[in-house]
């Protein structure tokens, strides 16, 4: 058996946690698009942002570089790609379970969307059922569409009274 100080680069990159939702790894969140090792030993990691202005992207880049350096890779190149755009459908089942366990309501799965035609405007808040991650009640209300991070909305449970975050579907 060949012994090596190098942990597999993909394993090292996938274990990095999200700076704003640390219950999730970048792999759970679905923002890690690729980990490749080039002929010269450079590890090229490709990331995609959740939102265009995601302020955590630079921290992710730093954390990835540190994790790979610690795993023995000296040459690391972290690139960002916008295409195809990230969707909450990319959050893994494991990630959804971890969100709920941490008190954050996971997003619904949106599935494929129509490719053409104007985006319809809904004038009344969508009647999406979001269960309270604390007590499980479905009688919850949206208090703000925009939350403390770009990915989350704020909700409140009418049954147990607890406020909670919801990873909003995009």
């Amino acid at each position, binding site marked *: 058996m060949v012994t090596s100080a190098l942990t597999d680069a993909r394993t090292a990159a996938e274990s990095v946690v999200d700076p704003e939702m640390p219950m999730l790894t970048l792999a759970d969140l679905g923002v890690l698009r690729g980990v490749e090792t080039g002929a010269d030993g450079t590890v090229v990691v490709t990331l995609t942002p959740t*939102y*265009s202005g995601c302020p955590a992207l630079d921290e992710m880049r730093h954390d990835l570089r*540190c994790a790979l350096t610690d795993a023995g890779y000296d040459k690391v190149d972290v690139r960002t790609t916008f295409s195809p755009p990230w969707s909450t459908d990319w959050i893994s089942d494991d990630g959804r379970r971890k969100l709920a366990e941490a008190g954050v309501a996971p997003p619904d799965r949106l599935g494929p969307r129509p490719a053409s035609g104007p985006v319809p405007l809904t004038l009344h808040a969508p009647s999406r059922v979001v269960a309270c991650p604390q007590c499980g009640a479905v009688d919850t209300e949206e208090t703000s569409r925009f939350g403390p991070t770009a990915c989350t909305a704020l909700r409140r449970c009418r049954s147990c009274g607890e406020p909670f975050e919801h990873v909003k579907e995009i």
Partner: protein
Amino acid sequence: MHSHDETDDENVYDALASADDDGRWAFGTGFDAGTAEIDAPVPEGVDRDDLATYCLMLADDALVASQRLAGWTTKAPELEEEVALANIALDLLGQARVLLARAGHLGAAEPFRVGPQDDEDVLAYFRDDRAFRNVTLVEIDLGDFAQTVAWILVLASWRLALLQRLTGSRDPVLAAVAGKAVKELTYHRDYAAQWVLRLGDGTPLSHARMQAGLEAVWPFVEELFTAHAVERRLVDAGVAVDPTELRGEVEAVLDQVLPAATLTRPDRAAVGLVGGRGGRDGVHTEALGPVLAVMQSLARAHPEATW
């Protein structure tokens, strides 16, 4: 190459400074965004200067709008609305950054170039008002909260219609930014539409202020549907969207929202172009200078500063 060791994370400032081998520029990003698509080649048959200028137009719309919205921070009527407006500003800033980086990479055309190697920060902080190519709607004073939501409704409806069409652009950066932005703009439009509905169909006072807010925004709407020569050339090349095509979709949204909100469609003259030139040519209202002064003054007072 930076070699990470345990001590880095013990000093938060060291860790920040070592993130990319060098300090971060104090007032901007100071690091290479490393976006995979930025250095994509110019599509065949497309004029490089035109493409750079078009990227600047769409970037400046988002950048100036973002700066205007940021002005609500610490001043919004409720904490939830402050968070919402800041979130919308952040999405727009993210869209602007990639487009500015693309424009800088292509080499912004004279007279909009600052130096030979403009990055997103140089283009944001060191261009003068005449070099900004945004539509004038995004630079106007936002007035009260009612005027702000009227402004977001118009801006987001128009930009959503534009960028949804742009997802089919032959330029891969424009297509990628558009594909991402469409989802964000849909949230912005929903947010604004719901507030316009709530205030318009609310108390006599909220109705009056909502109508006044809409009236204040209205003169700047017509420019959104005016095509610039650069846009027309790039439409022919399969890169840009013809803004004259967007009128129907934007008006359909307003026809859906305004009657439900018991508001009357304003009947006000458009702010005219000056000698046929408008925001897309760098001819702006007097409102742009103060916005840019707030955004740029610190970076200009301390150029090249790092921390």
